[in-house]
C-alpha cells in the first residue's frame, strides 16, 4: 500500500469499492443500450426495407414506458421496435442506476451520512423527473 498508484485508490481495499462498481454500471449500461439499438435498427430495416424508424414513442414517462416494454418482453411479443425502445430505456436508466447505487454505497460502504443525504436528494429529483408527464 505504499506505491503512489495504490495510495490514490485507498478505497480499493473494499471488494465492492464504489468507484469500481460505478465504472462497471456506466460502461455496461452504455454497451447494452448501443447493442439493443443496433440490433433493433437492423431488424427493423430488414422487416420494413427502410432504415428510417417510422414510429413514435408513447408520450409517457420513462417508468410507464419501461413497464409497457417489460410486459411485452414477458409476453414474448417482442418486435424490432421494442428492442430499439429497450435500448433507449436502458440508456436513460444507466445514470439513474449509477445514482441509486451511489446512495447505497455512501450509506453502507463509505458510511458517510452527508453524502448519503446529497445522493438521495439527487435520486429523488431524478425519480420525480422520470415520473413527469404532460
Amino acid at each position, binding site marked *: 500500500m505504499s506505491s503512489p498508484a495504490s495510495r*490514490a485508490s485507498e478505497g480499493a481495499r473494499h471488494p465492492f469499492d464504489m468507484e469500481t462498481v460505478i465504472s462497471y454500471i456506466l460502461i455496461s449500461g*452504455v454497451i447494452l443500450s*448501443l447493442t439493443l439499438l443496433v440490433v433493433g435498427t437492423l431488424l427493423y430495416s430488414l422487416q420494413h426495407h427502410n432504415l428510417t424508424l417510422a414510429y*413514435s414513442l408513447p408520450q409517457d414517462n420513462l417508468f410507464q414506458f419501461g413497464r409497457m416494454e417489460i410486459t411485452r418482453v414477458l409476453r414474448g411479443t417482442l418486435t424490432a421496435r421494442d428492442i*430499439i425502445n429497450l435500448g433507449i430505456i436502458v440508456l436513460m436508466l444507466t445514470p439513474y442506476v*449509477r445514482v441509486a447505487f451511489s446512495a447505497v454505497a455512501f450509506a453502507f460502504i463509505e458510511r458517510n451520512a452527508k*453524502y448519503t443525504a446529497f445522493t438521495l436528494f439527487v435520486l429523488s*429529483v431524478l425519480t420525480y423527473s422520470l415520473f413527469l408527464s404532460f
Partner: protein
Amino acid sequence: MTALVILAVSLVAGVIGAMTGQGGGILLVPFLTLIMHVDVKTAVAASIVSVIATSSGSASAYVRDRISNVKIGMYLEMFTILGALVGAAITLKSGGRFIYLVFGLVLLASFVALWLKPEMGEAGNMRQDRLSAFLELEGEYYDQVANRVVPYKGTRAGLGGVLMFGAGLIAGMLGIGAGALKVLIHDLVMELPPKVSTTTSNFIIGVTALAGASAYLAAGLIKPNIAVPVILGVTVGSRAGTRFLVRLSNSATRKFFMVVLSVLGVEMVLRGVGLL
C-alpha cells in the same frame, strides 16, 4: 436515406466534439437544424439523449482510474439537475426562434472563451473555505506523466453550486453537455486541477442530461427516426475522436473549431432574430 445522413452528420459532430473536448452536442444541434432541417426542439431532445451515452462511456474510465472526484460530482449534481429541469421547461414552453438565439449566443460565447483561453493553474490548490471543507471537497489523483500522487482541495463550494445550476440550465435547455462551462467553473471558481475538473465534469454531465431528457421524453419529443441514428453516430464518432486527439496538433484543431463555432453561431443567431 435520411437516417444514414443523420448518422453521418452525428458521427462528424462526435469526432470534432471529442477532438476539441467540447462534446458532440454543441455541433450536433446546429448540424441537425441548419443542414438536415430537423425541428429545433426534436434536435435538442435527440442530442440530450446522446449526451447520456457519450458522457457515461468516457466517465466510466475516469471513475475507474479515480481521476473523477465522485463526491465533488455528487455535490454539484444537486444543482445541475435542477437547472436542467428548468432549462428543459424553458425550451418546451418557448418558441423555436428563442432557442436558436440562445444557442447561437452560447456558440459565440464558446468562441470567445477559446479565443481568450484563460490560463489554468497546474498545481493542486490547497486553500479551502469552511463550506468546502465541511463538504469534504478534496481528493488526490495519480498523475501518470509526473509519476506522483497530486493532492488537491476544492474551494468556493457555494458560488460553484449556484453557477452549476446555470450550467445545468444551459445543458437542459439546449440539449448539450455544457462541459466547457462546467470545466470553467471547476477551474476558475473551485480551483480544481484541470484533470480533475474535466473528468468530474464528464461524470456530472450524464446525470444532468438524464434530468433534461426525462422532460423531453414526457413531452413526446424523442423521435426514434432522429434520436437513434444520432445516439449511434455521436457515440462512435466521439470514441474515434478521442483516438485522433493525440495525433493532431492542438492549435490546428483549435483554430478549425473556432471557425466552425463562429460560422454556426452567427447562423443560429440570424435564425433567432428572423433574418435567415
